């Protein structure tokens, strides 16, 4: 019986970890925008024309 109590949290944990590794869509979109800006060197009307600097500290 004790074994079950020890195993249960592990099962719960592994299940949660599996569920939680999801695709970070918002971050991916931001990353894509940044790369596109640099490749196309665009200054879009709907975006402030920020120069594509190399400031990738985050």
């Amino acid at each position, binding site marked *: 019986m004790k074994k079950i*109590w020890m195993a*249960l*949290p592990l099962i*719960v*944990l592994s299940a*949660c*970890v599996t569920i*939680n*590794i*999801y*695709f*970070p*869509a918002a*971050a*991916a*979109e*931001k*990353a*894509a*925008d*940044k*790369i*596109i*800006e*640099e*490749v*196309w*060197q*665009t200054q*879009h009307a709907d975006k402030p024309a920020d120069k594509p600097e190399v400031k*990738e500290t*985050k």
Partner: protein
Amino acid sequence: MNTLIRTIAAMLTLLAALNVYAAADIEVNTPAVNAIKASMQQRHGQLANYYASGAVGLTMDGMVALRDPGAVPLAARQSVNALVAAENQDREALYAEIANANAHPEWQAEIRNTFAQRWIQRAQRGWWVMSNNGWVQK
């Protein structure tokens, strides 16, 4: 029983931390990604004219395609084909590399989809992009 609850609580805390970490960012600052980016940036100087003339358009799967060969002088047709092929090779590599850099190779398709949408969204006025109803001019 108390120990169990405490263990679970500790694990949930850890999970929350993991979860935040997983959602935090997408890593795109790797030497491989930067190299591909530089190559694409350089090629864009040539491709931009073909986007503008409608010879080349953006597809829904994050690639580029020769849309109207008639818009390209015969002499340049081969070089456009080469440009499109090279660009698509770089784009394929870019999506794969970003997925790998984030230790999730299985994300490649989603990264490609994200890029596909953003390329099309950010395409300049006059460029041709593929939609569900075929080619449309922005």
